[in-house]
């Protein structure tokens, strides 16, 4: 059986989750087919302006991933594709696909865009959510991958213009849909979500009132590349709004609509949109958010909420808006709502509806063709202990299709799904991928520079403005240029062949392409010169399209002069280019796992499944961590005790995993692929282990409250202690008061502890199950029952649990008098102070960081958040990586989270670690810093400045000098710039090269 497995994976859906899963698989030696129904990948994230909580530009962080996925030798991107049938079983599937016609021959289209410029037909721009128009032949957005045009046949009148102007002969009006069959070993579903149709909430007037827009439309409005160039304008009259209302939960938490679940991301994106709108509006803007519960439950989210209220001055109103009406004269809007039990109306210039997430439109069809189960809301069904597994073995899920979630959760789950898929086909690693072989490199060290310059017409994109022949003529006369010529499309297949021939014919040892942007095209040309036996760093590029023809369209002369200057400048740099070696480092295929809770054990098993050895170090005498304290789940879909036992058994029995209990990591030395660490064992003996990666899974702890008589009165307990009582049958109480946010969301710990709302609901429901008469009050600030947890919140309310909101200004009071416990609190609905006599007060105590974090962070040289949790490389797109290569984090070491979220992250670290462990050697980027030891004065400035810890000081014949660990260096150049003795040379961006470039850009050089 095993030998029939196929080392390839089909990823369905090319949003950020699908892309992440594909990259992890492809980097671990598997073939990936990444398919999407849309004409390009990128999904919803490509449409966003900024991302919370860092306000990073969405396109800036996504587009490098798009480009990498598009160019990855192990990834085949299939667009305009739908899956029609699935046969076979885990390890060996056969998938049938239908490819819908673009009416464009993809292999020929090079995305030059002349067709769209000449197309006489206007169509609605769906990427801009209908707020602007595009042509009938189009790409979704300028950075689209693949950059292949598509004809909108519903709009196209067949005039033949595009056919005529296309120099690449790519237009094919009669192209038919086609069928294809793929053979893969596993499938990952990442089809994302559908935005809720706001017209269904007719009381908000969307579709009738032009100034009521959805949040996704508003993202496009905010975007600098959107319909209004990033200016916030009213769609009705193009005026700048002074007052905007944001209405939350549109299409979410709505029982009547059948969408009872919470969409999990809207509170944060609503807040973010309000903040960015203020930034993008020249005049002061009033922004008001109408919400039910502010669910800013993620890492550092509450800190953002605080800033939104304080620094950014966003107003928040806790109310469900009843309706919106319009003043037909001004097209202003009236928002009708109830606050403090009083009906109110307020006028706004614009209303933004925070629309929720729905399952993708084709969810049912997809489920049917793949044979997987959906849940009651038609999202993909999963379970708490198997968040990436669908009901069909070998088919995994990630992203919003398994339930509404934000980007970092989706990305983590995507890597997790990749690890699961790798587990199925680990034996076939490398089987379906071709290793590219290059000819031996020519030694050019003794040759005079012989530069070849290729100038691109780019159809007429460049040649239509810049006088390309004149630039070529000019280039020919520049020093060291021995060859120059023009190409219609320098990036086309046949030109690559031509470039290789010219390199050989003319003995070129430096190659320049003057065309478009190196950000997308440099890798292609580097590969080409490498195929011709040149070191890839002997290539350079200059951008005469985006910097000349497209931005000086009406000044052909100046555009041409500028192109000449740019060519002259890059020739001056090219003359100095030196070949660089990509450092190769060996990898020890072993992982060090710090922490043996559910995360550490899950990650260990996921790595062991793929054949890697793991050293699992647990401080406590037993494995299990916080999971030992969990007796039942909110979702009730599995028994945590059984799961724990099974996990411990699997880990202990696995011969790839070596478990150290009562043990501690006391020293870590080395870098990615080559770590050496010391583990202090129970008996005090120290053992040294070698490993290629480190995974931090040290968990977190429950806060020990000093509030509300805890520790003074035995009737005041924490949620964990209550759970213990309920499980052991020791629970007895007529009245229970639960107090939320104890030790969280305060001055000391400003962030939300995320899991306590779910714990409270879980325990309240358990009480109602065993003793239905017991009266339960839950005193909360916001009930953060996000995603499908909303169902249980509702169930608890239906079963009679009383939820009472409190604010910081009126905290609940607890006292003990004459042997009685008394709890008093303000009841905002009744508008009075209530006093009850509970038998038990349950504190939802925060989850606090593991106290050992600081020590470990110092040892690993990785950062912590202000709260004391570990801080990942990037909050949005690298949730389980540290900035330091080869070190990862998961579970509650990252921040408080539920079991399914910890498991997703744990599997994610396994996938991320596999991208390293699966390679015998790692090829690092050649652009690194080099220290000339003779010049180094040992001042340590570089060591201090390096953000990656890539500089270490070493002894060289009695002198202390800096030494760059090439494996860690990312080539940013910060050290080289600061070095007072100029002992550091930055590869490919040397000081001499840059200075030559500067000089030549400004002064004509004489031949």
């Amino acid at each position, binding site marked *: 059986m095993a030998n029939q497995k196929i080392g390839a994976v089909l990823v369905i859906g090319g949003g950020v989750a699908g892309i992440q899963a594909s990259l992890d698989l492809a980097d671990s030696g598997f073939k990936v087919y990444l398919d999407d129904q849309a004409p390009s990948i990128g999904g919803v994230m490509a449409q966003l302006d900024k991302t919370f909580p860092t306000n990073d530009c969405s396109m800036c962080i996504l587009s490098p991933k798009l480009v990498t996925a598009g160019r990855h030798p192990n990834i085949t991107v299939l667009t305009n594709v739908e899956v029609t049938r699935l046969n076979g079983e885990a390890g060996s599937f056969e998938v049938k696909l239908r490819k819908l016609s673009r009416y464009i021959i993809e292999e020929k289209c090079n995305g030059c865009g002349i067709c769209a410029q000449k197309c006489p037909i206007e169509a609605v721009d769906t990427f801009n959510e209908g707020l602007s128009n595009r042509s009938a032949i189009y790409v979704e957005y300028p950075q689209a991958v693949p950059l292949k045009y598509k004809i909108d046949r519903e709009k196209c009148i067949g005039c033949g213009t595009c056919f005529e102007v296309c120099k690449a002969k790519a237009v094919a009006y009669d192209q038919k849909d086609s069928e294809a069959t793929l053979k893969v070993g596993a499938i990952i579903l990442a089809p994302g979500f559908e935005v809720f149709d706001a017209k269904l909430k007719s009381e908000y007037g969307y579709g009738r009132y032009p100034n009521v827009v959805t949040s996704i439309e508003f993202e496009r409005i905010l975007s*600098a590349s959107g319909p209004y160039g990033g200016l916030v304008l009213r769609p009705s009259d193009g005026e700048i709004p002074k007052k905007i209302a944001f209405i939350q939960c549109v299409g979410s938490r709505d029982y009547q609509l059948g969408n009872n679940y919470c969409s999990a991301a809207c509170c944060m994106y609503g807040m973010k949109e309000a903040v960015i709108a203020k930034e993008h509006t020249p005049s002061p803007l009033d922004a008001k958010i109408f919400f039910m519960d502010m669910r800013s439950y993620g890492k550092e989210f509450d800190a953002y909420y605080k800033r939104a209220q304080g620094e950014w001055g966003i107003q928040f109103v806790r109310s469900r808006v009843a309706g919106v009406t319009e003043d037909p004269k001004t097209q202003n809007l009236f928002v009708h709502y109830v606050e403090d039990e009083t009906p109110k109306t307020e006028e706004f210039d614009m209303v933004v509806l925070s629309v929720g997430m729905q399952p993708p439109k084709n969810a049912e069809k997809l489920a049917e063709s793949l044979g997987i189960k959906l849940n009651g809301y038609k999202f993909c069904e999963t379970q708490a202990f198997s968040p990436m597994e669908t009901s069909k073995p070998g088919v995994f899920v990630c992203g919003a299709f398994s339930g509404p979630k934000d980007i970092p959760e989706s990305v983590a789950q995507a890597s997790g799904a990749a690890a699961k898929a790798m587990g199925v086909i680990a034996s076939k690693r490398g089987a379906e991928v071709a290793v590219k072989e290059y000819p031996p490199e020519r030694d050019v060290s003794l040759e005079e520079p012989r530069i070849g310059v290729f100038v691109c017409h780019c159809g007429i994109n460049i040649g239509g403005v810049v006088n390309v022949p004149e630039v070529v003529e000019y280039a020919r006369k520049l020093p060291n240029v021995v060859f120059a010529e023009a190409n219609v499309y320098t990036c086309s297949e046949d030109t690559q062949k031509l470039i290789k021939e010219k390199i050989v014919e003319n003995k070129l040892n430096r190659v320049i392409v003057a065309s478009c942007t190196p950000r997308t095209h440099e890798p292609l040309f580097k590969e080409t010169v490498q195929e011709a036996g040149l070191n890839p760093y002997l290539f350079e590029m200059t951008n005469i399209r985006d910097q000349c023809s497209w*931005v000086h369209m009406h000044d052909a002369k100046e555009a041409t002069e500028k192109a000449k200057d740019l060519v002259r400048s890059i020739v001056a740099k090219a003359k100095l280019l030196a070949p660089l070696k990509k450092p190769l480092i060996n990898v020890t295929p072993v992982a060090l796992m710090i922490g043996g809770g559910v995360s550490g054990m899950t990650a260990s098993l996921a790595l062991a499944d793929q054949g890697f050895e793991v050293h699992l170090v647990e401080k406590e005498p037993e494995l299990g961590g916080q999971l030992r304290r969990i007796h039942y789940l909110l979702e009730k879909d599995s028994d945590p005790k059984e799961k724990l036992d099974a996990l411990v058994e699997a880990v202990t029995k696995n011969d790839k995993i070596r478990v150290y209990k009562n043990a501690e990591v006391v020293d870590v030395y080395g870098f990615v692929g080559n770590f050496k660490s010391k583990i202090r064992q129970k008996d005090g003996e120290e053992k040294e282990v070698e490993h290629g990666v480190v995974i931090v899974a040290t968990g977190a702890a429950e806060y020990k409250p000093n509030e509300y008589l805890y520790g003074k009165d035995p009737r005041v307990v924490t949620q964990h202690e209550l759970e213990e009582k309920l499980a052991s049958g020791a629970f007895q109480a007529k009245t229970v008061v639960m107090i939320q946010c104890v030790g969280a969301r305060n001055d000391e710990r400003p962030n939300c502890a995320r899991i306590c709302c779910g714990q409270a609901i879980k325990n309240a429901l358990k009480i109602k199950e065993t003793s239905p008469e017991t009266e339960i009050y839950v005193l909360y600030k916001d009930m953060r029952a996000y995603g499908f947890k909303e169902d249980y919140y509702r169930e608890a309310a239906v079963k009679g649990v009383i939820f009472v909101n409190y604010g910081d200004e009126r905290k609940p009071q607890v006292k003990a008098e004459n042997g009685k416990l008394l709890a008093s609190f303000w009841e905002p609905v009744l508008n009075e102070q209530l006093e009850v006599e509970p038998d038990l007060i349950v504190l939802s105590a925060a989850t606090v960081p593991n106290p050992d974090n600081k020590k470990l962070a110092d040892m690993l040289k990785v950062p912590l958040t202000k709260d004391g949790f570990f801080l990942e490389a990037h909050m949005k797109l690298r949730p389980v990586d540290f900035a330091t290569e080869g070190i990862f984090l998961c579970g509650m070491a990252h921040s408080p989270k539920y079991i399914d979220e910890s498991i997703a992250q744990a599997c994610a670290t396994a996938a991320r670690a596999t991208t390293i462990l699966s390679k015998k050697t790692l090829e690092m980027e050649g652009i690194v810093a080099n220290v000339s030891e003779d010049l180094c004065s040992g001042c340590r400035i570089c060591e201090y400045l390096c953000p*990656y810890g890539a500089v270490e000081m070493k002894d060289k014949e009695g002198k202390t000098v800096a030494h760059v660990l090439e494996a860690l260096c990312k080539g940013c150049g910060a050290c080289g710039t600061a070095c007072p003795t100029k002992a550091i040379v930055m590869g490919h961006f040397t000081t001499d090269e840059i200075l030559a470039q*500067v000089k030549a850009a*400004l002064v004509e050089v004489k031949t």
Partner: protein
Amino acid sequence: MSEKNGFEPKIIGFLCNWCSYAGADLAGVSRIQYPPNIRIIRVMCSGRIDPAFVLEAFKDGADGVLVAGCHLPSDCHYISGNFKALRRITLLKKALAEFGIEPERLRLEWISASEGDKFAAVVRDMTEQIKKLGPNPLKEMEVKSQ
């Protein structure tokens, strides 16, 4: 054309690869028109920009220099290069006066990959401003001393 009898300034722009260079690309893709006075030099990060590069540019006759990187605080792809640039360029601006160069000739801007319009606006604005200032005074000094 404008002031100082048709003087067209030459501006050198040092742009970080990840945000600002991408922003300039977007200006191109979006066909946003701006004056042809800038010559762009790509570096990996604004933290790579040595004050010596800027001084060299002025010495070689640049009338203005733009340094652009990813937005503060956290957009820099190398964690904190933009802060390093902020410190260096701020100090350098102060020092420029000593060389007889108006500090306004040097600009530090944060431009993201989606701000094609901002890139164009910065170039437009700088070109205008430097036209008013006239040519790089070092050039004139050189002319006189010859």
